[in-house]
């Protein structure tokens, strides 16, 4: 206030009051101050200008200030600018605005009432000769609305249900059917370890099918994909999290089965050579029908007469097949795991696309085994039962650990590069994939072909970036994967001297982005490929 207001009163005394519509410029003023165009004139006031813009505009409307304003004259332009700045910042707390509305100020005209002259739309003084010469009224640069919404609504269960399309609903119902099958298998597994193990596998299938459906339905909503301030990457990372939970389930199931198996083994051993009479009898009381541990004794209630079809394992196999073909679940999980499958499997079986998925492979394999054993009238050995159970448990455990590690790495915000190219044999589209990647490389003539297994690791990409002619060095390189379809590369690059013009920079940026995408973005033909968002912060050497 101190530099501003006294001067304006000085110059304001000589002017004829009664400009009725000064307030039309107010909007302009506050944007000018916000943008800081007058910063060169009033250096000291600049920091405080940006904050109270809205209040300052209302302060301008107050009648007390209304009389002070007048068209700027050439000799007072400089002072006037200072005064605007001053009053914008300092006057607002002094004169508390009672009426912050524009229409109120129309009544304060002191001169003769001229109906429409001053009230036309636009800036009163903008086109006067003074303004034109001195660029006083600068058009404020258009300010975009906030880029991000603060937070998008997370759908409730009801909304999600309402948003489902027909196909999605069908998938949900199928998921329920699958769950019913799993329950059936579980409860019909009375006594047989192998069937219990199989039911664990089917439960896992159900879980991941449910995750697939949930992901599909949530994809209807904007909060899933679009980033907001609260969820910077959308909710898509939840899928990884659910996958991680499922892998914990796998590990847990593996542990559980192994412990059962061990316990049964110990029980039978204890039965055979009774160390401890009480314990042995207690154990025998629990499973009275198991008399000879190595005999041909059948296991409790579970007994499939040779030659008949085991309904439970048939149901398990059928539901898995339907899930695999219809739902295509596990697809994304598999891609994350990058399990190298023996190539002979792909060449033997035509349905390698499905069998390449280790989870489907496991379930199908074991359920067919269970189906076939009674059919070919193999007697139901206890040791065979245990063996199958142990096999399932071990594979569950191994797969679960690998899955947990792969997804845990993603959740830890890291990027684990591809293994050597060609390891994921059995995928039919692999050949064409490689071709597209190669074509992409040819168009990018600067790409240095490193070749071999080290081709797509992060460090090789960084090395390649460093070998660009304009790049003097890479200060920081952060590569990490957000979710199945998105990864980020944040680079801080030092440039050599003398190539700072915009076109070169822009070209360099897009070239770096292309290098990263071509090298690390995997599998163009395999459905959702990995998209890289590359951010390059440049600085000049020296």
């Amino acid at each position: 206030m101190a530099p501003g207001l006294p001067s304006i009163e000085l110059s304001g005394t000589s002017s004829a009051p009664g400009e009725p519509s000064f307030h039309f410029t107010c909007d302009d003023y506050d944007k000018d101050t916000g943008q800081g165009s007058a910063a060169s004139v009033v250096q000291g006031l600049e920091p405080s200008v940006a904050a109270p813009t809205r209040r300052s505009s209302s302060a301008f409307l107050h009648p007390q200030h209304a009389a002070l304003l007048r068209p700027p004259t050439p000799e007072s332009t400089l002072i006037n600018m200072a005064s605007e700045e001053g009053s914008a910042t300092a006057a607002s707390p002094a004169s508390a605005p009672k009426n912050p509305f524009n229409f109120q100020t129309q009544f304060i005209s002191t001169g003769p009432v001229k109906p429409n002259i001053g009230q036309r739309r636009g800036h009163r003084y903008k086109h006067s000769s003074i303004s034109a010469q001195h660029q006083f009224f600068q058009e404020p640069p258009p300010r975009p609305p906030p880029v991000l919404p603060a937070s998008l609504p997370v759908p409730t269960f009801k909304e999600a249900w309402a948003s489902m399309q027909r196909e999605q609903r069908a998938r949900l119902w199928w998921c329920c059917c699958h769950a019913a099958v799993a329950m059936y298998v579980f409860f019909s597994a009375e006594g047989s370890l192998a069937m219990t193990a199989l039911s664990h596998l089917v439960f896992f299938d159900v879980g991941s099918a449910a995750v697939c459906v949930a992901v599909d339905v949530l994809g209807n909503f904007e909060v899933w994909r679009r980033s907001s301030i609260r969820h910077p990457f959308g909710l898509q990372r939840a899928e990884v999290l659910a996958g991680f939970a499922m892998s914990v389930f796998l590990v847990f199931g593996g542990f559980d089965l192994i412990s059962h198996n061990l316990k049964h083994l110990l029980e039978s051993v204890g039965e055979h050579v009774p160390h401890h009479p009480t314990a042995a009898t207690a154990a025998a009381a629990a499973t009275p029908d198991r008399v000879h541990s190595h005999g041909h004794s059948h296991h409790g209630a579970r007994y499939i007469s040779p030659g008949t079809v085991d309904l439970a394992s048939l149901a398990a196999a059928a539901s898995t097949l339907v899930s695999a073909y219809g739902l295509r679940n596990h697809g994304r999980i598999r891609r994350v795991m990058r399990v190298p499958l023996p190539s002979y499997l792909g060449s033997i079986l035509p349905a390698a696309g499905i069998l390449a998925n280790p989870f489907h492979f496991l379930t199908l394999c074991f359920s067919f085994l269970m189906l076939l054993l009674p059919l070919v009238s193999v007697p139901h050995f206890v040791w065979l039962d245990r063996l199958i159970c142990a096999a399932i448990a071990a594979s569950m455990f191994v797969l679960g650990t690998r899955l947990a590690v792969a997804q845990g790495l993603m959740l830890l915000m890291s990027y684990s590069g591809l293994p050597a190219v060609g390891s994921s044999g059995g995928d039919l589209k692999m050949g064409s994939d490689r071709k597209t990647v190669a074509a992409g490389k040819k168009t990018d003539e600067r790409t240095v072909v490193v070749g071999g297994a080290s081709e797509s690791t992060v460090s090789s990409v960084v090395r390649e970036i460093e070998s660009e002619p304009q790049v003097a060095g890479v200060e920081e390189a952060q590569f990490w994967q957000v979710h199945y379809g998105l990864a980020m590369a944040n680079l801080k690059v030092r440039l050599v001297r003398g190539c700072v013009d915009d076109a070169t920079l822009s070209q360099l940026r897009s070239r770096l982005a292309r290098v990263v995408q071509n090298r690390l973005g995997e599998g163009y033909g395999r459905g959702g490929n990995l998209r890289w968002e590359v951010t390059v912060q440049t600085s000049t050497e020296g």
Partner: protein
Amino acid sequence: MAVQAFYGYVTDSLGLLSDSIHMFFDCVALGIGLFAAVASKWPPSERFPYGFGKIETLSGFGNGVFLGLLVNLVGMMAFGHHHHGHGHSHGHSHGCNGHAYEDKHSHNHGHSHSHQHHDEKPSHTHGHSHSHDNENMHGIYLHVLADTLGSAAVIASTVLTHFWKWSGWDPLASFLIAVLILLSALPLVKSSARRLLLTIPPETEYSLRETLSGITGLRGVVSYAAPKFWVDDRNAVSSADKLLGVMHVVAAKGADMEDVRDRVRNYLLEHKIDVTLQVEREGDNTCWCGVGRSTLAQPHMSTRSVGIF
């Protein structure tokens, strides 16, 4: 220690054996927790650009899910599936009277062991004075608690069955325990999931919005795009609410790009945000973030001035 128990009692008792299996799994879970606590102090590397701060959360999440599954299993067994005993109620499926005492004994053994672990680990991390609540420790604590409660339930139901011959005590006790564990594990899973999803906590979000709206007021900045921020937990000591992030900024035609970069970076650093900043020239719309492509600005201005009249 589990191995010791295993070999120590291998010739003695079946109940102890099966319990030692259980204890072994407990040990694995605790070991993972311990590993996570140690690994979270590792420095960032090329493969893990943001360090291992999240590994504790991850371990907590895993522990929570594990407990939830355990609860499901116990619940399922409580509802009439007695043919295999697991975990906390394994004493019963073999009949209670035979080795209930031994079972109790071994459980106590397990407890002393677990508590030792439990006591030792907070002392390990107390020196760092975590400002945020530690999900890893929470998970381990819950795990130990679940074990304790499980064995308490075993004892209680054994005593009850001893006095009143009703077979329903055991399922009832395990069911109660299951509900308790589930209720205590849910918040853990929720909070750790939120952190793993890179969600910005509400109070930080508010100040972040303020900060972002101030960016366009900086000199030379036309607009910005693709702002993505996440909580930095590289070192839990200093950064209470520090953010890391990525942003693209469009510099005005005449402005110096280096100047714009430094200005925005310093502005954000003042607000405890460390960004990787890509500065683009106005009109250059080659970037994926699509700053130059949409012309949101003009219609916005016109509608606003119309709104006044």
